[in-house]
């Protein structure tokens, strides 16, 4: 105690300055660096996109051109390919996220009950997370190849049908989903597992003494207590899935035709292949708007939780 006092006394001068400011100023100072980065590098591009969305802008025809009012918004709303890409994104997001959550939680329970080797299991589970979709996706393309791929080779050995994973327009999107499930299910599983392990023991012991059924324990104890963590993972996975780009770019490039063309990939094609920045920016604005509306529902509860804890704590 006296030691720490003497330390602070010896360094009174430098320590004195921050002590003089109020909590309010201190709290604002703390967020200044983050806000500076975010204001410049989020708002500037946003302003650019907004501006461009009201203009004619073909980068290979004179760059940013004349003001055209709401023409781009009308064009995008009337663009069938845009809506098709929205449909692909929704289909992908719902199926990938549901699969990842269900499988992830199931795997977490599976591992949670294991008595030995948990460390090794967890280590192996982490691997897909550490790899880049742009790189491992390439090897999935190789695995999916109908002429040289291992997947169909094994299926052939078992005399099972050998689908054209990325070439058949009825299943190409599911092949992309499968890749995403491979990469992200372990993420969900690891977090759910960590959640399971962090659960307090007492309520469960009490439930056991009461002779509650497994199902009842799950329904009334485990899931309610895991809910915050699972909800967070769900939101995270949803945000990432909606922005699906790398996996499509490396596996199918939106093909066959446009059946796997996600919104972000269509955005890429419009902005960086056709160089129609006006349409691309307009789509980005729509995208952001949709995400904001969605997140009002998804994030508000989380934030409420944060702020109540902040004020009570």
């Amino acid at each position: 105690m006296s030691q720490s006092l003497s330390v602070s006394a010896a360094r009174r001068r430098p320590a004195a300055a921050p002590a003089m400011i109020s909590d309010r100023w201190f709290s604002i100072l703390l967020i200044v660096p983050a806000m500076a980065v975010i204001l410049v590098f989020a708002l500037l591009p946003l302003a650019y996109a907004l501006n461009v969305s009201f203009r004619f802008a073909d980068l290979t025809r004179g760059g940013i051109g004349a003001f055209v009012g709401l023409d781009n918004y009308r064009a995008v709303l009337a663009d069938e390919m845009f809506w098709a890409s929205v449909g692909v994104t929704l289909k992908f997001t719902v199926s990938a996220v549901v699969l990842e959550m269900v499988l992830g939680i199931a795997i977490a329970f599976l591992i949670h009950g294991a008595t030995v080797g948990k460390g090794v299991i967890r280590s192996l589970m982490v691997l897909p997370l550490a790899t880049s979709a742009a790189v491992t996706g390439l090897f999935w393309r190789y695995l999916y190849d109908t002429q040289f791929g291992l997947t169909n080779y094994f299926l052939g050995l078992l005399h099972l049908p050998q689908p054209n994973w990325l070439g058949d327009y009825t299943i190409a999107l599911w092949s992309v989903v499968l890749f995403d499930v491979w990469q992200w299910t372990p993420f969900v599983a690891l977090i759910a597992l960590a959640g399971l392990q962090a659960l307090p023991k007492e309520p469960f012991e009490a439930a056991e003494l009461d002779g509650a059924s497994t199902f009842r324990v799950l329904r009334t104890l485990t899931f309610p207590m895991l809910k915050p963590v699972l909800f967070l993972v769900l939101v995270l996975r949803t945000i990432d899935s909606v922005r699906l780009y790398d996996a499509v770019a490396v596996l199918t490039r939106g093909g066959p035709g446009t059946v796997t063309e996600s919104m972000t990939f269509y955005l890429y094609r419009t902005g960086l292949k056709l160089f129609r920045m006006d349409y691309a920016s307009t789509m980005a604005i729509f995208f952001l708007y949709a995400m904001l509306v969605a997140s009002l529902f998804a994030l508000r509860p989380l934030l409420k939780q944060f702020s109540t804890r902040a004020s009570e704590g």
Partner: protein
Amino acid sequence: MKRTILLAAMMATAAPVGAQAQACADADRVPITWSTIAGFYTDAMAKLVAGFEADHCVKVNVVNIDNSQLYNKQVIEMVGETGAYDVVTLETSEKAEFAENGFILPMTEYFADKKAQLDDVAPTLAALTVQYKGDVWGLPYYTYTAGYIYRADLLEDAGEKEAFKAKYGYDLAVPTTWKQHRDIAEFFTRKKGAMLKGAPLEKDFYGVGLMAGPFPEIQDEMSGVIWSQGADWLTDDGVVPVDAVEKAMNDYLALMQFAPPAALTVTYDGVMNQMKDGQIAQTYSFFLDQWPNAAQTETLVPGARMGVAEAPEKKAYIGGFLLAVSASSTHPKEAMDFVAYLGGHDAQMEFAKAGGTSTLMSVLSDPQFADPANRAKTGHFGTLLAIFDSMKGFRSNLFDTPFGAKIYNTMQIPLQSAAAGQITARQAAEQLAAQVEKICGGPCPIGK
């Protein structure tokens, strides 16, 4: 081995470097950057660049970019006027766009006193790549002009010939019509266990390799068919001729059943892998610069012998990678010198020796490349000369509209949808017409 070559190259260039040493210190060297496609000739390029640096007080930096990304990467740098790339590499359909937008500099004046060098470029190619609206825009240094690459051992096998004649009523030979080509594709499509050249097949065998994956190469394949109908992707009025595209698409669909299922996911490299693994008998209308790659089949597949010929009906995708000088280059003079050097006779000779497919008549017709000893690398040169002769004066509106690059980068979508069976040939042609109209904002302007 590689080191020996490099050493030899360094020794070969050592003398001129020494001579230049007083005139040019390393610090004085003007830096120029060339953006190009990653490829086997990168090693050859080290040699070529050294040769250029020996005579010029320049430091050349070569940036290798994945072929599918080259276009947008270069456009971004051009739009941003960054000057990052001094020399750019353009596909045939991109030239008009780059010229119209002022992304690249005309080299008409530069070549005014170097007419002989321009004249050495194969005239058919020069008309498509060098010229636009009366100006000279650079030099093509590499051609991917397409032809017919096939398993000669199969087409010349006595047993197969006999069976073919019995089935189709004419002799099995290199096809000269699309109909014959289709027949050959059908004839050689066989299941695992069936006989090929008198021996049972260990895996399924296919009559033709196709590039119907999500890449622009599907339209390269179809171009030969469209063009041999006397049609083009764009009419002179700048619209897509729906009927002609539908017909070509239907021909293509008829071939799909004789191609490996992977056709729907691959481009040329996948087709080459299938060839080298002994899975396909022929290629439809294939980039001849891949000949050295295809020739490896002879060592990888027992008994295989490769052949190369003109495409059926003597029409196939044609063009080359154009070297042009960026308008935002800070050293345009040096960049132009580099273009002239790389596209020039001496450098192209070196390039060809390394397996590159040259664009110069003097190189293509050099007797050393016709030598059977060089067949694995340059066995396709003779065929190329024949194609240039057959397609003399050929033009395509696709290469003469400033929207060519964007159209080229979009075309594969409806075409691939049809190839995958999602839409009909008619729908594909109509969608293509609608998308092209949208890209051009009406009929596409054609500038010659």
